[in-house]
């Protein structure tokens, strides 16, 4: 689904954020992206969502070279990617309902459909009773879950999360990771940037390690899908 071929990103001012990064992320996979802060995790995610263009190499999304995508096609690429940020990026002057509904409003979905789907998404993250609240009234973990609801409302095939557990306590972090695992089980490809090494090791999924802008390790998943796994929900 995603393939990086010799990707380099140099910011104006000479900062080399990524150099010669190569990896493949297959459809339906869940992987962690880890490394020290400043290792280039955010840059890598930003290249996929085309918030930045690579300086060299190719970023392929479903076989298409994202870096060469015309500006007018960018919005349609972003609609196929759900992005979750450490700082939530919620609109504080809009209700939770409207925050989650935003991608559907943009796509021009009918109001009754929006209503149905927003409710379903909020239900999934356990915040159905908070739909009329404003984000600043919620706890950090709840805000992050609103961000997840917004990211998944459009049913994107790919979910990117940038330090989603950065501001949360361990219990909430584990909870949150469970949401991602559940989403992955229904077929969403997930890439999570995180430096919560403890949590990552517990889950035993594929781990990509960045250091100073280079991909230094790619640990395969120890996770074996079992019948009982699929039986859970």
């Amino acid at each position, binding site marked *: 689904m995603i393939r990086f071929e010799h990707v380099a990103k140099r910011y104006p001012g000479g900062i080399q954020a990524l150099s010669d990064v190569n990896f493949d992320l297959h459809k339906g996979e869940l992987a962690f992206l880890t490394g020290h802060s400043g290792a280039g995790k955010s840059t890598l995610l930003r290249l996929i969502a085309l918030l930045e263009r690579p300086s060299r190499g190719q970023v392929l999304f479903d076989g298409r070279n994202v870096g060469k995508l015309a500006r007018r096609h960018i*919005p349609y*690429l972003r*609609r196929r990617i759900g992005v979750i940020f450490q700082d939530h990026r919620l609109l504080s002057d809009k209700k939770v309902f409207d925050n989650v509904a935003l991608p559907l409003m943009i796509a021009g979905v009918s109001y009754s459909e929006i209503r149905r789907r927003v409710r379903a998404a909020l239900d999934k993250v356990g915040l159905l009773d908070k739909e009329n609240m404003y984000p600043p009234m919620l706890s950090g973990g709840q805000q992050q879950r609103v961000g997840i609801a917004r990211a998944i409302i459009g049913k994107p095939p790919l979910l990117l999360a940038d330090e989603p557990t950065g501001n949360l306590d361990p219990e909430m972090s584990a909870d949150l990771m469970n949401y991602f695992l559940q989403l992955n089980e229904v*077929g969403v490809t997930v890439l999570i940037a995180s430096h919560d090494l403890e949590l990552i090791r517990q889950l035993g999924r594929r781990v990509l390690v960045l250091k100073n802008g280079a991909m230094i390790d790619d640990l395969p998943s120890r996770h074996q899908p079992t019948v009982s796994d699929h039986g859970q929900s």
Partner: protein
Amino acid sequence: MEALPGAAGLRAWARRHAYSFLSSLGALTRQPIASSMTLIVLAVALTLPTALHVALDNVRAISQSWERLDTLSVFLTADIDENEARRMGSRLTLWEEIAAIDPISPEQGLADVTGQLNLGNVSEELASALPENPLPWVLEITPEDDTVLTALVDRLEREAGVSSVVVDLKWLERLDAMVAVVGQLVLLLAALFAVGVAFIVANTIRMDIQNRREEIEVMSLVGATPPFIRRPFLYTGLWYGLIGGTLAWLIVWFGLIALEGPMGELSGSYNADFTLSPPSMEIAALLIAGSGLFGVLGSWLVVNQHLRRINP
């Protein structure tokens, strides 16, 4: 798993537009003080050229009505008597530039002059004091509406028996020239203020964009197209322009009402019947639509500049 490539079709389009429309109204009402200040600046700025245009229109109308009333006085030479004067008068009525001719005898002329000078009883004394009436026969000519007066004057002066043709039109010509100058000024001012409107709106929208920077970024992140992000701001610019133009028109309208009383007194003192005519519907429409257009233009400028920064 269905993704969201963008619901197509007319209904989706209409829904997206409805969203932009409502969101633009929200922008105006969210900061009522800031937006009303902008509106007042716009209204005042637009009032100036509009008021000038209305004033000019009225002066033009008055000067035209004066021109139509104006007559030429053809002074005949002293040796022409009543018969000859009347014969000449009936001959000139055949000219197509001339609408009517009124021959004035020297006696009547003298009476008019003394009457106009308001000399009262003195006039009779004056008339009797003169050894003989110094005035010649005069033909008072009312030209047709579309006559070129200077050409008619030339032609009359070439006639035998005509001593001089008096047209007191110099001041009217000057007025016309002045009206033309001011008319040009109105056009220049209108152009200048149109640009002003665009930039006032641009500046206001720029601040609005600053305040909503995060919202714009988030919308862009979740896949809003640039036209979708741009549209509420264009609507906001349109509202500013339309409302500002309408306010300017109202200000001019109320100004005219306020001037009505003094104007009546002024025209009464001249024994005339001037009334101020309000701006024509065309001008009102031009003002409002024009300022709306330049409002959109102004917001287009800033929004595009900003969007370029978000989408690399």
